[in-house]
């Protein structure tokens, strides 16, 4: 693959004319996708895709294009030549871009992560055995991922990672189900067995008569995967510089009024600790960490190259949303969560969150999968789905009781267009007076 990329960069270099420069980003994957329903295979296949994005620049005028490439030198040269011709023709009609920012310092990098992947079909056999008798639904995704940057100045950045992500749920009647995920770089059958044992245990509880609750305020525990749903929505426009400067961030009251979250809340974009490439699509190297919220107060925003130029702020991110969000741990031991919860709701997952009032950072969403009613520290019954509608300023502000001492590293399961390299590293959160509405 690396040879293919070097060839593509070399071809682009040969296609540029005097006075022109280019940047390019290769995004590639060789992925197995196996979709399961009722512990049987619904769809199974392989996707090999390579996409090259090009920015063709002359002075401050530039036009962008992306295209699928094959890896066949002759065919790719034809396709690149056609694209470069199109970009050059369009560039004659565009105005100089005052917000164009290019990486001018050549900073090469290489990030190759070890490949310990299993054979997909063999892993699926193990999954089938481990889930025997269960109504399992889910997706197996695995294979190598590639990201690479090159520009006219000779900069080269290479990222290569091979991981698997098995995301599944096991179902009883109706909507009673338990969700789980096993993702990583090296397949360990024992780890799968342990997770499947937990699923079987939780399914036993899900089989009890369900409890319905009335709308109102309840004490809740959000497991890391549930908290991830909340923070993923806040990441949607909450942390970017442009969103802040144009007053469209959902954290506007933190930015304008100095509103604060609970002092226990510290959020960091942990470029160094995540799964995403350490360089941006335009060739900037990311700093190791960007502190977004510290001790409950807003600190830095995420700055893309365009916003960096527009607002005169150093670049510290690719897009203006977290890719490797890290939340500091708290002090509640995981084994003490039920006791500290006392009577309330233990929520493993939330679903379909959206802003109901962006100015107040109020978020609505649903409980889903293994949601439990807890009394006096004991899980008593599965909970019928409930809608919540609650402000971040309350749930992670005045109503936050505490965060767990242990955290979970969550691989993003997203596969829109391509497999995601995003991740989250989160504790669980114990919250009082959490509002449910329907």
């Amino acid at each position, binding site marked *: 693959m690396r040879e293919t990329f070097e060839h593509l960069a070399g071809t682009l270099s040969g296609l540029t004319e005097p006075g022109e420069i280019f940047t390019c980003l290769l995004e590639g994957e060789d992925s197995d996708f196996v979709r399961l329903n009722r512990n049987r295979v619904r769809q199974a296949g392989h*996707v090999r*895709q390579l996409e090259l994005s090009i920015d063709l620049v002359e002075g401050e005028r530039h036009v962008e294009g992306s295209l699928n490439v094959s890896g066949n030198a002759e065919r790719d040269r034809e396709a690149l030549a056609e694209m470069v011709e199109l970009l050059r023709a369009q560039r004659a009609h565009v105005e100089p871009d*005052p917000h164009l920012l290019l990486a001018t310092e050549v900073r090469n990098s290489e990030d190759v992560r070890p490949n310990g992947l299993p054979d997909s079909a063999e892993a699926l056999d193990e999954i089938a055995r481990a889930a025997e008798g269960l109504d399992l639904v889910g997706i197996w995704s695995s294979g190598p991922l590639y990201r690479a940057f090159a520009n006219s100045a000779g900069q080269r950045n290479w990222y290569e990672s091979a991981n698997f992500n098995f995301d599944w749920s096991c179902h009883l009647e109706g909507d009673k189900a338990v969700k789980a995920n096993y993702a990583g770089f090296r397949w360990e059958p024992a780890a799968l067995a342990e997770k499947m044992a937990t699923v079987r245990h939780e399914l036993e509880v899900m089989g009890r008569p369900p409890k319905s609750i009335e709308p109102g305020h309840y004490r809740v525990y959000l497991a890391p995967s549930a908290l991830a749903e909340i923070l993923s929505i806040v990441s949607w426009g909450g942390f970017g510089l442009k969103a802040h400067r144009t007053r469209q961030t959902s954290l506007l009251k933190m930015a304008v009024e100095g509103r604060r979250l609970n002092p226990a809340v510290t959020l960091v974009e942990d470029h160094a600790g995540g799964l995403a490439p350490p360089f941006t699509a335009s060739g900037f190297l990311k700093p190791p960490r960007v502190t977004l919220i510290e001790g409950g107060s807003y600190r830095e925003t995420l700055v893309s190259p365009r916003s960096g130029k527009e607002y005169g702020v150093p670049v510290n991110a690719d897009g203006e949303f977290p890719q490797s969000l890290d939340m500091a741990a708290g002090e509640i031991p995981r084994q003490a969560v039920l006791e500290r919860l006392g009577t309330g709701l233990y929520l493993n997952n939330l679903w379909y969150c959206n802003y109901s009032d962006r100015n107040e950072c109020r978020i609505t969403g649903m409980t889903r999968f293994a949601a439990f009613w807890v009394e006096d520290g004991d899980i008593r019954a599965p909970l019928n789905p409930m809608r919540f509608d609650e402000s971040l300023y309350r749930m992670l502000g005045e109503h936050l009781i505490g965060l767990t001492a242990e955290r979970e590293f969550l691989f993003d399961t997203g596969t829109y267009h391509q497999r995601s390299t995003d991740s989250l590293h989160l504790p669980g959160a114990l919250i009082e007076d959490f509002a449910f509405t329907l």
Partner: protein
Amino acid sequence: MKLESIAKAFRERAPEVEYWSLMLVDDRFEALSVRQNVLQPVNNWRNGGAMIAVHDRGGMGYGATSDLTPAGLAEAAARATEWAHRTAARSLVDPAILPRVAQEGRYSRHGERPWSGMSLSDKIALLQDANRTLKAGARIVDWSAHLVHLARERLLISSVGARLEQDFECIGGILSAAANDGSETQNRTHGEDLFRQGGLEQLEATGFPGEAERVAAEALQLLDAPDCPSGTMDLLAMPGQMVLQVHESIGHPLELDRILGDERNYAGTSFVTPEMIGTYRYGSPLLNVTFDPAREGELASYRFDDEGTPAAREYVIRGGILERTLGGAVSQARSGLPGVANSRASNWNRPPIDRMANLNLEPGDKSLAELIGSVERGVWMDTNRSWSIDDSRNKFQFGCEVGRLIEDGELKGIVKNPNYRGISATFWRSLDGVGDASTHEVRGLWTCGKGEPNQAIQVGHAAPACVFRGVDVFGSE
């Protein structure tokens, strides 16, 4: 990219299996955007690849590749065959029960005024003009105008003689203004749900860029507007909200693959069960919903779905009674239930699954004035901005960019932050007024997410204004 020559080369070296199909895709996408009077980078996306499906020895597999050389396609076919063999013993679906399409056909839709008929400079000038209109005052803190165009070509061939060509173009124009005062920001947009098949003539037809002045004015008005009242009252939902209501609480729950459980780990299941087909009262007698792949200009129009099934208009709900689901040939064969031709793939790199295409709420007989006049106390809402619904597609909560009070049959002042919530299974039975053709609008959403691996696809919805009684309406805190 010449799809025909690629297909010919593949056919000459086709895999020796019981059945194969090859879908070739060539998309040319162009996006132009001006934000705060500054042209953003013009973006061109050329997306092309192949999806090869194989049925052999009782199994099914697929191989997708961006390498369209004969060697690349052969490798993808080998991968597909390997997956078919390796999963045959555990396949959920027996490929022997699936129909194999052998027919030939063509669908081609292009605009009266082609995208290429306007120069790039003129398109940029159009966006700059819109930007100047959108910046209607100091309190407008961000503003932008966008144009997108997609020219799509697809060719499907199969080992039993299918040859289906489909090519069309889609277009859309978006206007956006954000107004701010202190710690409050209000947004108004136009066009995010107005994508259509066709050429430049569709921009004017959908109000681009003519609605720019209204968009900016309403963003400013919202800053000074009172909050939407809370309580049980009537809702008059305009087409800009109806498309979302139809999409989330009729379209998704009727997708047959959800009912069959394929989506339970991701997009979710459905409150609809197979026994409901033919008898279930989904809504009031005023509710008539059609699957209409032939609606002129609607975004998801086609003649064949991506498995080659010929598409035709069908009633999904008639007189409030559920008649059929939205399930393609595979789901129909699995379940024995009636469906439609809606097996669709977002692109060459994803296999087809059941998707909405054009799903339309048919017009009724009430003018907008009559609908307003029928409301004693309620809120008019337009332009969806927030959507959330449970995994069975039942408990929903939706919000709109703008609302207006209705009192004693008269439309009153603007209100901000309008929201409402309800339960699909009962909400549609409160439908008490359906707008006539004068209120009926053809709209389209560019991305609807579903599937594992994930797929984002275009859907079309046409809907009139509608009145619902006794809805739980609320505003901000």
